[in-house]
């Protein structure tokens, strides 16, 4: 309990730090909402500029702006988008499911494919399996996922003349159409992700398989499967779970390009557009959401360690 309390405190401190950082960073970017609204062809005179700044509260000193933002955020109000005039909270809530679904499906497919493949690679003596693992590893690590995404789109349309429904459909309103829409983006993300996990699983397994307790388990006469899954894999899981957790965090933020290529209006794209449009409330809100999620995933991973290895105790 004390551990949890301490962790919670640190969470608050790190989130506060993130909030100050992002608040300052977006304002450090050259150009502001006035420049975006005027563009290179339109014109906003000094009076109009002042009017826009006043309208968005940007005429106040920075500390005042920050405290106002923080105070309303504590009350659950993330402010209003400069560009669309929508409440940021509602905007993020409507975008969140897409990004979460993308991340979860990617993690799920990676876990189902890459972990077994890694185990196989660690025990198999087949050259083919080893080659396959090497190919997946090499391709996944060296080919950027946006390139794979474009390739998948072009192959699907030019060879198969197929493309999923254009406008995003919720999984609960039509799971089949939704799965089709997620197929290519998840595929493009999963390849690179799998490469990491396959290699991690393989090396972790190889290390554990050479340990004494595995020999003991074998000597006791346990079946090969039981040795592999119950004893070896369980002990090999810690580094795998760590990497899986870290990568999931990156997935939340790193799917920007994937979302854009496949036209999925998720959080990554929302953030990118927020930056382009100098839409401070949107950028700040999205980053705070990402930061919160990242912190939560880390906490979950840490707690998962105690389950995987009962020797780990948090005091």
């Amino acid at each position: 309990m004390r551990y949890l309390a301490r962790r919670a405190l640190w969470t608050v401190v790190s989130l506060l730090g993130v909030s100050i950082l992002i608040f300052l960073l977006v304002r450090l970017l050259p150009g502001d909402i006035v420049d975006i609204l005027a563009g290179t062809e339109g014109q906003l005179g000094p009076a109009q500029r002042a009017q826009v700044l006043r309208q968005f509260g940007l005429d106040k000193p920075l500390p005042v702006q920050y405290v106002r933002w923080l105070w309303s955020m504590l009350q659950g109000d993330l402010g209003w988008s400069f560009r669309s005039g929508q409440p940021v909270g509602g905007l993020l809530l409507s975008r969140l499911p897409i990004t979460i679904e993308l991340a979860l499906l990617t993690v799920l497919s990676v876990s189902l494919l890459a972990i077994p493949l890694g185990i196989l690679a660690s025990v198999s003596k087949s050259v083919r399996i080893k080659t396959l693992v090497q190919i997946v590893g090499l391709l996944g690590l060296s080919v950027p996922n946006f390139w794979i995404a474009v390739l998948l789109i072009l192959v699907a349309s030019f060879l198969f003349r197929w493309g999923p429904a254009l406008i995003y459909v919720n999984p609960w309103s039509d799971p089949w159409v939704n799965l089709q829409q997620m197929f290519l983006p998840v595929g493009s993300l999963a390849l690179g992700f799998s490469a990491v996990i396959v290699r991690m699983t393989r090396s972790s397994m190889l290390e554990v398989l050479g340990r004494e307790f595995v020999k003991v388990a074998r000597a006791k006469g346990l079946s090969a499967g039981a040795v592999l899954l119950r004893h070896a894999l369980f002990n090999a899981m810690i580094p795998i779970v760590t990497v899986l957790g870290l990568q999931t965090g990156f997935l939340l933020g790193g799917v920007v390009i994937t979302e854009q290529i496949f036209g999925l209006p998720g959080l990554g794209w929302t953030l990118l557009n927020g930056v382009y449009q100098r839409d401070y409330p949107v950028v700040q809100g999205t980053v705070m959401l990402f930061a919160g999620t990242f912190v939560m995933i880390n906490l979950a991973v840490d707690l998962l360690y105690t389950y995987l290895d009962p020797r780990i105790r948090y005091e």
Partner: protein
Amino acid sequence: MPRNRLQSHGGFSRRAFLAGGMALGGGVAGLDFLGRSAVPALAQSAGTPKRGGTLIAAQEVDPVSLDPHTNSNYSALQGYEHLYESLTGYDEKTNIIPALAQSWEITNGGKTYTFRLRPNVKFHNGQMMVAEDVKYSVERILDPKTASPWRNWLEAIKEMKIVDPLTIQMHLDAPYPALLGSFAGMRGSGIIPKGLAERENLKIKAIGTGPFKLAEYVPQDHITYARNPDYWDQPLPYLDGMVFKVLTEENARLAALRAGQIEYAFMTAQGVAQLEGAPGITVMKSPYAWVVLHYINVYAKPLSDARVRRAMRMAVDTNEVIQKAVYGAAVPSGPIPTGYGDWPLDPATLPYLKPDIPGAKKLLAEAGYPNGFAIEILCSPQYPEFVATTLVVQEAVKKIGVDVKVTQLEWGAFVATNNKTIRSGGKEGGQILCSANTFRPDPDGYIYPYFHSQGNLNEGGYSNPKLDPLMVEARTVSNHAERWRLYHEIQRVVLEECPNWWWYAKFNIEALSSKVQGYAQSFTGRRIFLKKTWLA
């Protein structure tokens, strides 16, 4: 023949142009850009129009906001142009035609405009459109609180008087022939119901008089339009609705076109090459109002010397720029885009079509820079053609000893630098900036704001005491022949003095499913004729 000269000098590939245009029956007309007016390539439209069906299209850039008065981004106009209309509009040849105003009279020496509104026009909420709404809309644009970036297009209006519910008079402080175009241009001139802006968030909601109503707008995802059954120009529109899915990635648009998922997409010259020979897809292209240029900050040395600016321009091969920036899909252009009625100069007679290195060197030496100098050019990778154009310039001026540093900036940062240059009169900001000028409702829009010493887009305070009165005269006289003469003269002078370097007017390339009939390209680049489009 000017046509042949253009081919050899401008390097504009006639075959490529015909390949796009001819298939659509508008190719020959397209070549007519040398002449009086730009005739856009027309879609094959055999058979009679048919009601019904939904057009699925790609939107290449997210509109971000649908407010018809407060946005400078072109994609916003693409989003709201089907929803709102103004007093005037454009036909296929970019002539100004009546829209919400049925007719108008210009009296009092060009200072009073009396608009007679079209009767029985309904807004999408069922309300009748009357003079009160026009007055309210124009007042909203002119109100500094609205912060409309297009306010200056209408700021000549000093007073509005409602004569009767369907007649409104506008009094100007000086004659301003661009007024009719300023309404038709729709950058900040949509007519909205009185009080709407106070009631609704116009960034995501819309109530206009346009051929389509807004059914749904999910920013960054899609816009769905539904047919306006009460549209005044019956039987238009033919379509039951349209869906524009935001697909910023060109490969995704290509894929969706080939898979038959969308029936319309905007394309680059590079992208459209991949559609060659694709069954069931028609490609339309014609030059439009998109002139790529470099703005030059003339405040400080060495760029304050016209000879330096001209020498650098002389060193560059316009044809090479066109080939490398847009794969040949453009025509050379001066300040007013090639193809804009009879206002632009004949591209075959433009200076600098061929590079002149010895001449450039000589000029530079005369100006006192025989060994050249170092300079920085800013551009944004948001538009790859701007970067490509700048790189061609960089290579070319090396030959006359000018060392160019190319700096790429994210678009928002670029805009900020550009605006800072203008605001500070050239004391701060950039030296040379690459951008494009899009459609202006009147030739004045390409001239006065940039080159008059009081112009508010004047980069670095360019000023020519001989030109200033000519520009004022050109924007106030209403006689067409007189204006024509003035604009041709002004363009010759600025081409000589190079406060900007103009490169080309790009082709508007649009790919459509062959099912789409009756669509026409507009010189404005807008998709206003989707209201006349039907699905076979």
